């Protein structure tokens, strides 16, 4: 405990003494953590959106114009008895046209030129999340597609998979970039800490000669790296928070519309804590690399 206390006090004193060069190390850590934080912010929000979309899965069964009421009844029975749906709604041809006019008001004038209503009647089915996950919904879709009176069934889950795959690519590229930047930041910390080590070489020689334990000799340098890393990461969190606030105040509505009426959110405290811990780990690693030259 005394060694820890000594390391922190000396680490802080050394950081303050060399505050000019330490600033470079702190900025380097902050840049790496900003890249990592921005990546987390993007992927976390997209993951939230994907989870929401996955849990709100729906498919539409489009009926042929000549489908009889018996055929429609059989389709609805098939849906109700499948046990994989959370509800259904019949949308008549007229309802479909009205919905189009309401949702695409700027195109509504086009529909006045139609001789016949081109929109098909449909049954919109809400799928239970567990049924979507275990493939039972897909099975129901196949059976419905083959049922009499059905023109088409739309249950396009591929685009969700494509987004998830794109997200994985972005995450991998971002992680690679953040790792490179973290390594560069760690090297910067090591260089700065090592400069402090050279400045204190007489002190270190005395420590070695009087039999100071390694924790006392090397601890302050690791602590200095840890403090630089922590400060850099906290700076990154503050800057990310400010950037988020600015972006939300300028483009908040557009972004929220983009995420399907949800809200783009800042990183939760758990992820922010990981980010700060990551910065401290990078700083400590740099400090440790430098400390190996002491004692």
């Amino acid at each position, binding site marked *: 405990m005394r060694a820890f206390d000594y390391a922190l006090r000396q680490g802080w004193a050394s950081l303050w003494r060399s505050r000019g060069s330490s600033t470079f190390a702190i900025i380097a850590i902050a840049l790496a953590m900003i890249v990592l934080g921005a990546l987390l912010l993007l992927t976390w929000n997209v993951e939230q959106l994907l989870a929401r979309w996955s849990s709100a899965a729906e498919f539409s069964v489009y009926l042929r114009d000549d489908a009889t009421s018996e055929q429609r009844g059989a389709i609805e029975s098939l849906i109700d008895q499948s046990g994989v749906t959370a509800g259904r709604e019949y949308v008549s041809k007229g309802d479909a046209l009205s919905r189009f006019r309401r949702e695409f008001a700027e195109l509504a004038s086009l529909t006045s030129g139609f001789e016949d209503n081109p929109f098909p009647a449909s049954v919109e089915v809400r799928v239970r999340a567990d049924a979507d996950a275990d493939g039972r919904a897909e099975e129901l879709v196949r059976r419905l597609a083959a049922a009499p009176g059905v023109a088409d069934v739309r249950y396009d889950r591929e685009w969700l998979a494509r987004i998830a795959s794109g997200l994985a690519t972005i995450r991998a590229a971002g992680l690679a970039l953040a790792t490179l930047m973290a390594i560069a930041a760690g090297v910067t910390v090591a260089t700065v800490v090592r400069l402090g080590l050279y400045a204190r070489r007489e*002190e270190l020689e005395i420590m070695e000669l*009087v039999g100071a334990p390694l924790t*006392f000799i090397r601890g302050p340098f690791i602590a200095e790296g840890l403090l630089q890393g922590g400060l850099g990461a906290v700076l990154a969190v503050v800057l990310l928070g400010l950037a988020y606030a600015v972006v939300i105040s300028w483009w908040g509505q557009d972004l929220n519309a983009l995420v399907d009426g949800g809200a783009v959110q800042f990183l939760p405290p758990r992820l922010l804590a990981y980010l700060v811990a990551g910065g401290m780990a990078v700083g400590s690693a740099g400090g440790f690399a430098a400390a190996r030259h002491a004692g």
Partner: protein
Amino acid sequence: MKPTPRRYSWISWRFRVARFWPSEGELFVNGQNLATLKRHEIQEYRRGVGFIFQDFKLIRTRTVLENISFVPEVIGVPPAQQRRRAFQVLKWVGLQHRMNAYPLDLSGGEQQRIAIARALVNDPLLLLADEPTGNLDPDLSLEIMNLLREINAGGTTVVVATHDRELIRLVGRRTVTLDQGRIVEVA
């Protein structure tokens, strides 16, 4: 290249604090073979050895009292004890009134007395002094040697490496003469 006598005294001193190892033979201190010590045992051993350098090796950014309390501080002695012990040895060398001064504000003799106080703060069994009077005038040199005699009288083994034959004659203690790294005389 022929090594200088200065280098020899430095190297033998380094042997005794277990920084270098003899290429031949064994080195025993207080019945302990230094070659067989493990890292943590070396640290333990060094805590029982005081050291004094020709150039004092005081830390310029620390006050006199901080320079002395630095030694117990870095081996984990509680803060209150560090300062008490440091003040005691500072008083013993007669410089308690300069406790808040910085090394560069002191004379050479005062700096060497501070270095002696620092060497004594852990109450060592063995005190190694490498040319302790090398940077001092004859009067101050004798003063420092008398201080070392007092330390020796208190039960601490004091080993002084010096080229000053006159000082050796004045002190009149056991003398081991080295030439080219070999003992040539014990008087």
